């Protein structure tokens, strides 16, 4: 079952995919379905003995391309719609124990090309309005498979958070002589400097002034590129370098492979004009506030949508920057 139900109180779709209850849950390493199929071994999702990077359709998708019209018709107030979309799994490596932080800049650079390719291909499908590239890492985030991988959801709508961000950027642009909101935020971070964590030639990583997680970090393209597919070769290399620096810094700061959510915000693929509005960037939300304490999205955050933080971004950015710089020296 894949269906959407409209929440008129928040004006957003909720997706239902009941078959996901049966998905594989933390199998032992020797039975990882994302490993290559070894000669004589059990068949995994990958019918080859080795691979560099692979992408396949999720076996337990939240959206499917041929979702039928829901049997529950809903009502004019609460309509339903087919859960139509595409869900892919992106395997970063055939090494079960690898992490993005531990990968070479070359491999991350290759991964950037794969992400860009998927953005272009999925975005060209007529019913796909938004290509959302993300990674959930670590059991604290709720991952069910440890093999290094990310996911892509090709949504039939622009999801609420990017939509809200795009709306803010469009309004800012209309009120500020066609200026890009994200370009101006980045300029502010550069001028202040206190929250900048890592800088490359084309990308900057920083803890935003308004971070919603203690060690949240954003990686912004310096140029106002709408999507990952618009990045030049040099920009893709630099994105790989800055991502690596940030991830190594995270692990060094906490002393273990840090769980996180990594998400990419970029231009929708609904055919609209997002020039000067969409500005490609990557956002990281690690759940840890210390090595052994997590930041929970509790009553205020979940029920009121109001985040309450117990550390200032300037403080966390300082310690994260030291870890990044220490790893580089």
């Amino acid at each position, binding site marked *: 079952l894949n269906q959407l139900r409209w929440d008129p109180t928040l004006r957003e779709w909720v997706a239902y995919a009941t078959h996901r209850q049966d998905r594989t849950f933390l199998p032992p390493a020797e039975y990882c379905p994302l490993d290559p199929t070894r000669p004589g071994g059990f068949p995994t999702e990958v019918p080859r003995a080795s691979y*560099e990077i692979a*992408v396949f359709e999720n076996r337990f998708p939240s959206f499917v391309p041929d979702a039928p019209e829901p049997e529950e018709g809903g009502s004019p107030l609460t309509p339903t719609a087919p859960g139509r979309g595409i869900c892919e799994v992106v395997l970063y490596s055939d090494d079960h124990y690898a992490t993005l932080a531990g990968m070479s800049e070359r491999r991350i650079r290759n991964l950037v090309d794969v992400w860009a390719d998927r953005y272009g291909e999925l975005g060209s*499908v007529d019913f796909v309005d938004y290509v959302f590239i993300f990674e959930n890492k670590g059991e604290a985030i709720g991952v069910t498979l440890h093999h290094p991988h990310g996911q892509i959801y090709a949504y039939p709508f622009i999801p609420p958070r990017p939509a809200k961000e795009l709306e803010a950027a469009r309004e800012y642009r209309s009120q500020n002589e066609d200026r890009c909101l994200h370009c101006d935020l980045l300029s502010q971070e550069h001028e202040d400097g206190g929250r900048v964590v890592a800088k490359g030639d084309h990308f900057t990583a920083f803890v935003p002034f308004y971070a919603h997680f203690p060690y949240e970090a954003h990686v912004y393209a310096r140029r106002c590129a709408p999507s990952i597919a618009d990045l030049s070769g040099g920009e893709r290399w630099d994105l790989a370098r800055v991502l690596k620096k940030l991830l190594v810094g995270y692990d060094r700061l906490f002393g273990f492979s840090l769980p996180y959510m990594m998400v990419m915000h970029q231009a929708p693929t609904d055919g609209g004009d997002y020039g000067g509005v969409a500005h490609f960037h990557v956002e990281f939300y690690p759940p840890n506030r210390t090595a052994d304490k997590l930041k929970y999205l509790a009553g205020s955050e979940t029920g009121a949508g109001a985040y309450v933080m117990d550390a200032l971004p300037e403080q966390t950015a300082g310690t994260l920057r030291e870890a990044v710089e220490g790893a580089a020296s």
Partner: protein
Amino acid sequence: LDRSGNNRADKSTAEAEDVTRETGMVKERETKEDGRYIIFYSFEEEEDKDPQESSDS
């Protein structure tokens, strides 16, 4: 249209095929037994050197 919205007639159902070869990236698409696709990406490293490595050397 197939599951990804592309024309199924353009695709092989069993054997791998070279689909694109640009900037050193080779993309091979296969269809698995249950109908889902899998795409293998490989890279020819000489095609795209790190510009920082070039300028450093």
